[in-house]
C-alpha cells in the first residue's frame, strides 16, 4: 500500500468513526475536522414526513394494492398479455432459439440427404439401400449407360418406351424398328436389376428369384451362383418374364434385397415383325404359285427348275418363320438380368440368423444415434451463435440503460 493510499484510508476511517460514534475524535486536527464534516453532512439527512411514513407503512402492509390514480387520465386499456417475469421470458427465448436451431438443422440435414441421393447422380453403388424405383421408371444407377440409347429417356412408363437402336435382329438397320400406322406394336423389353443381400442370405434370395420367376409364369434361361471359401458370394440370373407382367415381377424381385441398380429399356421391332410377316406371306404365295406351275409343267426340265425354286422358297419360308418365332419370343417375354451381390460391409456370419438380425439392429441403432448426434451438432452450431448474439444484445442493452441512467447525474 502506498503512502497516499494509507493517508486516504486513515481519513476515511476517521469519517467512519465519527459517523459510528457521533463524535469527531481524531488523532490529528485533519481527522477531527473530517469527523466534524461527516457529522454535519449526516445532519443534512432529511427525515420523512410522518404522514407519508404512515401511508407507506400501510401500503407495505397491504401489499401495495394496485389502485388507479385519480389524477391520471383514464386511457382505453388494450387487452394485455399475461405479465411474465424474467425467468420465463429467458426460458421462452432459449426454447425459441433451440427450436429455430433444430428447424435449421433438420432442414440442413434434409438438404444433405437429398444431395446424397444416389439415383440423382448415378452413384447408386454407394448407397447401402436404394428404394425401389417407381414402376416404369427407367435407368437409375451406374449401369444406366450400358443399355440405353435414344429410347431410354427417363420418367417414361415402360409401355411408352421408344425404340432402342442397337442391332436390329431383322437387319432393318437403325431405322428399321418403327413401322408407322401399325396398331399392334411389338416391343422387345429388357431389364437389369442388381440386388444386394447379406452373405448368409444369398442362397435364400437366389431361391426366391426362381420362385418369383415361376410365379409370373416365366422361366430361368441361365443362372449361376458363385461360392467363396466361406459360402455364397454372388449370383447371376437371366430370366424370361411375360412382357405384360414385367413390372409386377420387377416389383417383387426388388423386394428380395437392397436394390443397387435397376434399369429398363425397350426396342420397337414392329417394323421387323411386319416385314418378316409380309415376306413370309409372299414366300408362301410364291410357293403356291410354283406348286401350281409344277402341276402344269410340260417337260422334265421345266419341272426340275420349278423344284429348285420351290426348295429355295421353302428355305426362305423356314428362315422367315424362325425369324418371326424369335421376334415373338423376344417381344412376348422380357429379358431380365439379375445380379446378386453380397451387401457392402457385411462380413458374413456364422450362419446364425439371430446374430445377423442383432447386428443389423445394432447397425441401425448406431446409425440412428449418429443421425441424432449430427442433428444435435447442427442445432448447437446454430444455437450457440444465436445464444451468444442474444447475450451480447442483452448485455449491450443493459449497459446502455445503465449509461442513460448515469447520464442523469452528469
Amino acid at each position, binding site marked *: 500500500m502506498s503512502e497516499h493510499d494509507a493517508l486516504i484510508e486513515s481519513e476515511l476511517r476517521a469519517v467512519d468513526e465519527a459517523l459510528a460514534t457521533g463524535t469527531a475524535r481524531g488523532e490529528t486536527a485533519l481527522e477531527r475536522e473530517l469527523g466534524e464534516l461527516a457529522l454535519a453532512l449526516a445532519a443534512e439527512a432529511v427525515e420523512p414526513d410522518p404522514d407519508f*411514513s404512515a401511508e407507506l407503512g400501510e401500503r407495505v402492509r397491504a401489499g401495495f394494492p394496485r389502485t388507479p390514480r385519480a389524477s391520471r387520465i383514464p386511457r382505453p386499456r388494450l387487452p394485455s398479455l399475461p405479465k411474465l417475469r424474467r425467468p420465463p421470458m429467458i426460458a421462452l427465448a432459449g426454447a425459441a432459439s433451440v427450436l429455430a436451431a433444430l428447424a435449421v438443422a433438420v432442414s440442413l440435414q434434409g438438404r444433405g440427404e437429398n444431395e446424397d441421393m444416389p439415383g440423382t447422380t448415378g452413384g447408386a453403388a454407394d448407397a447401402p439401400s436404394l428404394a425401389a424405383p417407381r414402376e416404369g421408371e427407367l435407368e437409375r444407377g451406374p449401369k444406366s449407360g450400358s443399355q440405353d440409347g435414344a429410347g431410354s429417356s427417363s420418367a417414361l412408363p415402360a409401355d411408352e418406351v421408344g425404340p432402342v437402336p442397337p442391332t436390329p435382329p431383322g437387319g432393318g438397320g437403325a431405322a428399321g424398328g418403327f413401322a408407322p400406322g401399325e396398331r399392334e406394336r411389338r416391343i422387345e423389353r429388357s431389364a437389369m436389376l442388381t440386388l444386394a443381400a447379406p452373405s448368409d442370405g444369398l442362397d435364400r434370395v437366389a431361391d426366391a428369384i426362381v420362385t418369383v420367376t415361376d410365379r409370373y409364369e416365366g422361366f430361368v434361361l441361365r443362372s449361376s451362383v458363385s461360392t467363396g471359401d466361406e459360402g455364397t458370394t454372388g449370383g447371376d440370373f437371366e430370366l424370361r418374364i411375360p412382357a405384360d407382367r414385367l413390372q409386377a415381377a420387377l416389383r417383387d424381385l426388388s423386394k428380395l434385397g437392397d436394390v443397387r441398380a435397376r434399369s429398363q429399356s425397350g426396342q420397337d421391332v414392329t417394323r421387323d415383325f411386319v416385314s418378316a410377316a409380309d415376306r413370309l406371306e409372299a414366300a408362301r404365295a410364291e410357293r403356291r404359285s410354283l406348286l401350281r406351275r409344277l402341276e402344269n409343267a410340260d417337260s422334265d426340265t421345266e419341272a426340275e427348275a420349278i423344284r429348285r425354286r420351290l426348295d429355295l422358297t421353302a428355305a426362305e419360308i423356314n428362315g422367315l418363320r424362325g425369324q418371326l418365332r424369335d421376334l415373338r419370343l423376344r417381344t412376348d417375354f422380357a429379358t431380365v438380368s439379375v445380379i446378386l451381390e453380397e451387401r457392402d460391409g457385411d462380413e458374413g456370419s456364422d450362419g446364425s440368423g439371430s446374430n445377423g438380425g442383432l447386428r443389423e439392429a445394432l447397425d441401425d441403432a448406431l446409425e440412428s444415434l449418429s443421425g441424432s448426434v449430427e442433428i444435435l451438432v447442427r442445432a448447437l452450431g446454430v444455437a450457440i451463435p444465436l445464444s451468444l448474439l442474444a447475450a451480447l444484445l442483452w448485455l449491450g442493452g443493459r449497459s446502455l440503460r445503465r449509461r442513460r441512467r448515469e447520464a442523469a447525474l452528469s
Partner: protein
Amino acid sequence: MNEAIAERVPPLAGDIPSETFESLCERTFPKVYAYVAALLRDRSAAEDVTAQAFERAYRKRRGYKASRGTPEQWIFGIARNAALDELRKRKRRANLEVDHEDVEAPTTEDHAELALRREAVRAALGGLDGHERDLVALKFMGGLSNAEIARVLGTSESNAGTRLHRTITKLREACHERA
C-alpha cells in the same frame, strides 16, 4: 405486524428468510428517503420516488438474491435507479437543475455557529456534481459503508473509497473557502 398480514407479505428470498419485507422496509425506509431527497433535492418528488422504489422492490422481492448483496444494498440500488429515472424525466422536461431546493432550511432555534456551519456545508454540497452528490448521499444520508456503496454503484470498494475521499476533500476545501 399481525399474522394475517405476515402471510400476505412473504419473506424475502435468499439467506434471510426470517426477515419480512415489512421489517426491511421499516429498517431502511428513513435512510432511503434521506438518500433520495438528497439526490433529488425535492421532498415531494423524494416521497413519490421512495414509494415507487419500495413498491418496485415489493414486486421484485422474489428475484432478490443474497449472493448479489445485502437487502439494504438491493433496496438502495432500486431506489437509486428510480431516482435517476426521475432525474432523467426532469432533464427531458428541460429542468436540468432543480429550481426549488426545499430540503430543510435552518431553523431559527439553531445556534449561530451551527447555522453558519450548516450553511457552509449546504453551499459546498451545492457545488458538487451529480456523481459526487450521489456518493455523498449514499454515504452520509443513506449510511452505507464503502463496500455497500461499491456494490450499489457497481464498482470496486477501493474505487468507491478513492472517489469518496476526493469528494470529501472537495467539500472540506469548499467549506474552508466559505469560512
